[in-house]
């Protein structure tokens, strides 16, 4: 093949790649890049209703981070997102890891259990939210009725500031636990059997096996689970919206950045007014937090994978 032919071949290949990428790139540009850039621009504008009225520099960002009463709501919501992430890491992903290990043992009926564990994942968050909202209803809910049978008077789970966020986190864990469980299970199944058998022969208990042998070997799966949980936690919206409403009821106890952004930008139905400037500033803030932390976490977790 001459140099000219090779060049022609290369150009043709490049054109093909470009052609195949173009539809996807066009869709991404139209529905992701343009709106993101639009939100960035809106974060630096003031609005009257839906109409931009001028550029205000960093005023909107400054307001949502430092100026009362915006700042208090932002920090409270951010803290709740952090709590959601930490809790889901422990409750949802911790249990998922244990379940994956149990399924790995291939005990009788493990396939049925695998389906049962994964089943809630296929349900819509809206359906799950409504279902658990009803189950947790202080008067008609099955949870308190069951507790009443044992003589315990259950609290108004979603109406008490001390239990509301926890109840939604528990619902999220019930809904999503199957997903990390399957990721962990797939990673565990890739570990050579000889490794696990050797450990067993050396007298490793289940606890030792999980903590010392399997845990380091499923590090790539952990990276994926941690990053997805982080992104999911900081984009949390559907479940709190359905279960406690746009205001993050009661009294902001379940308010998270997703709700705060939506409420600020589009206004509550019977409470607030649209404020696209401050809403966009919150969206930008969320984007920066998620992108920056994900990037740093990814770096650390990838380094851990190599180290392990």
């Amino acid at each position, binding site marked *: 093949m001459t140099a000219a032919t090779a060049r022609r071949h290369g150009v043709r290949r490049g054109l093909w790649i470009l052609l195949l990428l173009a539809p996807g790139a066009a869709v991404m540009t139209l529905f992701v890049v343009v709106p993101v850039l639009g939100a960035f621009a809106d974060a630096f504008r003031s609005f*009257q*209703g*839906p*109409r931009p*009225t001028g550029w205000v520099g960093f005023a909107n960002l400054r307001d949502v981070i430092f100026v009362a*009463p915006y700042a208090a709501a932002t920090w409270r919501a951010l803290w709740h997102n952090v709590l959601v992430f930490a809790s889901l890491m422990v409750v949802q992903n911790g249990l998922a890891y244990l379940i994956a290990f149990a399924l790995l043992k291939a005990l009788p009926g493990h396939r049925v259990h695998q389906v049962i564990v994964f089943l809630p994942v296929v349900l819509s968050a809206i359906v799950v939210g409504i279902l658990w909202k009803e189950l*947790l*209803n*202080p*008067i*008609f809910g099955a949870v*308190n009725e069951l507790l009443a049978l044992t003589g315990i008077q*259950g*609290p*108004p*789970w*979603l*109406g*008490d*500031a001390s239990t509301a966020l926890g109840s939604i986190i528990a619902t999220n864990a019930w809904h999503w636990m199957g997903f990390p469980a399957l990721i962990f299970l797939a990673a565990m199944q890739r570990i050579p059997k000889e490794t696990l058998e050797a450990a067993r022969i050396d007298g490793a208990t289940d606890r030792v096996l999980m903590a010392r042998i399997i845990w380091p070997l499923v590090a790539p799966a952990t990276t994926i689970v941690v990053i997805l949980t982080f992104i999911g936690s900081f984009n949390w919206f559907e479940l709190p919206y359905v279960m*406690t*409403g*746009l*205001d993050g*009821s*009661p*009294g*902001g106890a379940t308010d998270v950045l997703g709700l705060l952004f939506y409420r*600020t930008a*589009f*206004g*509550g*139905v*019977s*409470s*607030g*007014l*649209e*404020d696209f400037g*401050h809403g966009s500033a919150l969206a930008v803030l969320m984007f920066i937090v998620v992108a920056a932390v994900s990037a740093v976490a990814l770096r650390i977790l990838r380094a851990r994978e190599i180290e392990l």
Partner: protein
Amino acid sequence: MRKLLAGLTALLAMTGVGAGVARAENITFWTWRQEDKAAYTKLFAEFTKAHPGIHVLFRAFPPADYQTIVSTALAGGKGPDVLHTRAYGGLEQLAKPGYLLQLTPQNDPELANLPASAKTALAVRSTGKIYSSAFSTQTLGILVNSKILAEAKVAEPKTWAELLAACKAIKAAGKICIANGTATGWMDEVFAGDLTGPLLGQQFFKDVVAGKTTFKDQKYTTALGRLLELKPYMPPGFTGIDYPTSQQLFLTGRAAMFVGGSWEIANFHKQNPKLAIDFMAPPAPDANSPQLVSKFYDGGYAVVKSSKHQKAALELVGFMGTKHFGDQLGAMLGDISPIEGVKLADPTLAKVAAMDKQSVPYIMLVSFRYENPTGSELLQGALQKMFAGSMTPQQVGATVTEGIAKYYKPFQGK
């Protein structure tokens, strides 16, 4: 063949036979009230009969998304010809940036049928220009299950002391006295606005709007504190009871009273026609004081400025401002139109309309939902905390006052 068709078309055009077809206009009407579709369809058919060629397409969106959909549509240069608008701040957000057509006695003579207070609710405050004709008024009061009251041998309470006594008797009879929970923020504002109205009296509202006092006023915080006296008579776990559950408790006959608005009357009758429902004004502080209801305008009908069918849209808004339309709103939907001379055949609605003569404004919506943070936002969250016991009435008053003070000068430094 083509020549023949072209010739026929030209002939029809010249003779005017096709004029009806050429004038046919389809205009769109957007609303958040899907449940009213049948009534509006019937009314629009009447409109078309009186205005041949103008057809109205009804389109409803979920209430929670309505403002978002309208705003994004208008910002994108789209949207309907006629819009069901909110009143007060919700209207101003669309009118001020120029999305709505100003209504004047020239382009909408039916405006003359509206009382002055309605015109204020549907105008931009700084200019006084009107952008919407009125839809209905809403009145806050208490819906009562008369059967439960009769069984507990109590009369409809007229004073606060009577309310507490009635609740005690109803609770002793094994029923919930007040159906309301506090899990839905906007209903908490309704609950507080409704019951504190008569306790505060008309002068307090005049003073707040004039900037002579604030929500830190002891009168206001004392009134909020009295709401806490009702906690023993609310449903068990009331902080976790949301609006739909409260409605269910009342509709299934488990609770005697529902603190709400006149918009519930038709809805409750429809959901449980067998329920003996009455509507009463909230109790007065004592036998010598009036039972004041809280009142507000619930929205209106506006012409979108960029509409390509502005004339037809104005015709429709004019039709919606007639006494006939107002009568039909009452008869078909149970809404009380503010149009002067409207007749209400339903005795409960007529009773509500009579109560409106002694009213106070639903203050946060009427005066403090024009800028962010709105009085409603501030109050709703704070009330939930107050009912949960993590905030005092004084802290609620301070939170609301200091939040509003960001943009409302008379509250600054107070």
